[in-house]
């Protein structure tokens, strides 16, 4: 398959864009692979891509029960930033952010990464204090995050109302200029296409229903609805379904699955230049390139795999957005949907080995893993290839729940993104 370029675009214009080839093959599963990745979301596809690119030659398959990117990857509000509080997370997310910067050319696929700035609004003295703590912590690590006065915030995002007599006055904001958004589907497709070109088999409609272990206790194969596939290295990257997959190998993990919803409005002309988040009012909002406002809600309170959350959760998000931006009151919402987010107690992911030899896990990204997609795939690929955690992944091992070495971003974030 040829590269995308201005030339190929012009060529295909001549044939009315009817002759574009398939972007990746649809191979039948082989009897065995060196590495099997369970889950064709962004993280699983990125893992396969970096395995093939950096650690090959390896025979790799990605098994996806539905269609690639149909899980949380294709359902998220695409906010990308790296200004997390703790060193371990800030380093991991910033590793991802650096990969985002060059991802379109790396994959030869336009993932529409748009570093338009992510702004977090401070409405109280407590917000001011905690954001400034974040800013200092980030600056010590060389990660950009800066404090804006209300006037500076308004200059950056003119639709903000900085009247100090409002119910939730904007007392300032933390801004990460390198943060932004990307096109979620394109991330899945771009990684799929690039991985396929390196020989990775991407197998859709292929659900893993069991994991087989040998007498030595190590993994030997997966059973799928399309037959048995042998592999001595299996990486589970299945987000909200990870507990089920770990259960197939006889493992229980510290994870719970919750619904998380988002909505988009009817498209309007460009009005919203950056991403704005408010923890206090609990809303986050940006505008897609199509013009829709993209609005994220919070998780429901109960464990669920239904991918449907309560209506009161979605309407609460709209109330919050309207509180901040009354001008959006008359906008109609086009669509709303839910994902299945995999949440840990410290709101940090689990990346690494499991007690079952040959079985690796990458999960727990919860409400905020899209931004980590390239970095997550990159460090997880190295972890699988070397049978040893990548140094950025090491703090995120499953063992932290026993040792107590948590990376507590739960209190630090308090808003789903």
């Amino acid at each position, binding site marked *: 398959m040829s590269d995308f370029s201005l030339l190929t675009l012009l060529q295909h214009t001549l044939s009315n864009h009817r002759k574009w080839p398939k972007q990746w093959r649809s191979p039948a599963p082989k009897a065995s692979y060196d590495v099997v990745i369970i889950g064709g979301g962004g993280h699983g596809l990125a893992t396969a891509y970096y395995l093939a690119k950096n650690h090959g030659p390896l025979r790799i398959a990605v098994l996806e029960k539905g269609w690639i990117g149909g899980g949380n990857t294709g359902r998220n509000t695409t906010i990308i930033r790296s200004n997390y509080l703790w060193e371990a997370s800030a380093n991991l997310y910033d590793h991802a952010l650096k990969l985002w910067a060059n991802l379109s050319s790396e994959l030869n696929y336009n993932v529409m990464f748009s570093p338009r700035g992510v702004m977090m609004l401070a409405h109280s003295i407590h917000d001011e204090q905690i954001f400034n703590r974040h800013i200092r912590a980030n600056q010590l690590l060389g990660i950009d995050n800066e404090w804006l006065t209300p006037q500076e915030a308004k200059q950056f995002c003119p639709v903000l109302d900085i009247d100090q007599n409002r119910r939730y006055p904007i007392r300032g904001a933390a801004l990460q200029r390198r943060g932004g958004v990307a096109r979620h589907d394109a991330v899945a497709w771009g990684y799929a296409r690039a991985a396929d070109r390196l020989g990775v088999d991407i197998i859709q409609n292929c659900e893993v229903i069991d994991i087989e272990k040998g007498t030595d206790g190590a993994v030997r194969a997966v059973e799928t609805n399309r037959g048995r596939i042998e592999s001595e290295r299996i990486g589970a990257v299945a987000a909200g379904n990870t507990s089920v997959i770990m259960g197939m190998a006889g493992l229980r993990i510290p994870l719970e699955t919750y619904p998380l919803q988002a909505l988009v409005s009817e498209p309007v002309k460009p009005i919203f230049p950056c991403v704005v988040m408010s923890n206090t009012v609990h809303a986050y909002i940006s505008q897609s390139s199509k013009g829709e406002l993209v609005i994220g809600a919070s998780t429901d309170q109960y464990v669920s795999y239904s991918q449907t959350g309560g209506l*009161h959760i979605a309407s609460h998000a709209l109330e919050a957005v309207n509180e901040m931006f009354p001008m959006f009151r008359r906008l109609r919402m086009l669509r709303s949907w839910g994902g299945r987010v995999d949440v840990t107690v410290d709101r940090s992911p689990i990346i690494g080995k499991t007690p079952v030899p040959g079985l690796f896990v990458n999960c727990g990204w919860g409400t905020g893993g899209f931004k980590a997609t390239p970095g997550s795939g990159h460090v997880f690929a190295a972890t699988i290839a070397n049978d040893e955690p990548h140094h950025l992944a090491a703090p995120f091992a499953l063992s932290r729940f*026993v040792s107590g070495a948590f990376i507590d971003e739960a209190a630090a974030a308090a808003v789903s993104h």
Partner: protein
Amino acid sequence: MLLITCPYCEESRPELEFHYEGEAHIARPLNPTTVSDEEWAEFLYVRSNSRGPHRERWRHLHGCGRFFNAIRDTRTDKFIITYRQGEFPEHEIVEETPK
């Protein structure tokens, strides 16, 4: 929004009256001093997170205020049964067979 039957009030009320309290029937270790780190982790953090029937606690926070238990199918969010504390209605936990 879920409709939940409180087994004390014996009424179906909207979810807004209730607070979810996590997985049910997780007993605190009786003798904490002899419990290993692994056992603490299991008690504190590891959850079954079942895809299918799930035993869980709820509290009728804005009603009678009492805690009770339920079995709810997490694939459909439908309640199979709600029951009072101290009870343990048998229910065959049928695993989902995706085949």
